[in-house]
């Protein structure tokens, strides 16, 4: 019994302790002129869907959830955002060459098709980020058109 108490105490201290470790926040007031929405003629419904489902991790501006400042959740978020932006940053879209754009668009299509993105851990809380079948079709059609027009 005593051991359990000690373990619980240690865990509590650790939990409180890690709250003091700072994380970098992914937030920006400006949308650069290279943004995907600004350089492409994106229909409004698709804009909205991409904003909700993709931009949190694939742009310079995250709409943080309520638990964003609590560790270790903040770390996981930070990590996902870092990885997401390295793979694709919608804000910097137009700085890519056509070859790179084509590759990225292909990946976007495959990721949505296979349901790999958005991540399950993300849609667990952001239920509105999930793609319904019609939404997926709509977005994939648009992205395919865009890819063919490159």
């Amino acid at each position: 019994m005593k051991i359990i108490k000690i373990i619980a105490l240690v865990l509590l201290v650790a939990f409180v302790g890690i709250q003091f470790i700072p994380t970098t926040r992914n937030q920006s007031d400006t949308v650069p002129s290279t943004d995907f929405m600004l350089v492409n003629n994106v229909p409004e419904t698709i804009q909205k869907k991409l904003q909700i489902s993709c931009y949190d991790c694939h742009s310079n501006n995250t709409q943080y959830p309520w638990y964003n400042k609590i560790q270790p959740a903040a770390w996981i978020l930070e990590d996902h955002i870092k990885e997401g932006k390295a793979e694709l940053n919608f804000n910097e879209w137009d700085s890519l060459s056509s070859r790179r754009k084509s590759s990225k668009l292909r990946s976007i299509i495959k990721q949505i098709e296979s349901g790999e993105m958005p991540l399950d851990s993300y849609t667990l809380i952001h239920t509105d980020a999930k793609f319904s079948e019609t939404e997926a079709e709509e977005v994939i059609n648009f992205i395919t058109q865009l890819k063919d027009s490159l």
Partner: protein
Amino acid sequence: MKNLKMSIVAILLLAVSFTNAQEKEKMNHDHGDMKMDHSKMTTMKSDVKAEVILSDYFNLKDALVGDDTKKAAQAGSKLVASLKAFDAGSYSKEEKEELADIIEDAIEHAEHISESAIDHQREHFKTLSKDITDLVAITGTKSTLYEQFCPMYDKGSAWLSTSNEVKNPYYGSKMLKCGKVQKTIQ
């Protein structure tokens, strides 16, 4: 015992390459007029680092033909390294830009291939093949390549091979013979 075998193999390899070199020399002696063409071709149309990239690409292709995810992943990692080692120093400014673009894109696909399951590897192999084809169009190569095409995979997909016999890397054993040679690159 193993060592002995290895050395025998090494000696044999050496011997083969020696006789090969000698034969080439002989050929050049025999046909004095052909010699010029030869040297011209090698200086203009061969880039050692591009050849390494190609050889890694073909290892990857063969692994996919053999449905071997693990081998494909290893070949992918090797390809990442050889792509990173590429040096565009001797090309024109325009070519340099294009090459940098191709290499950057190809590295990303090779990286994905090095860490994915076979379906995913094949998806990336498609775009990678396009990159490598564009690369060869600039660097040239000393060997004859065949651009092959399978109309079934993902609305039609191409790849490169050193043999004109079709072995499909997108389907492997499932549909090994699907496809045809659509272009010979020399």
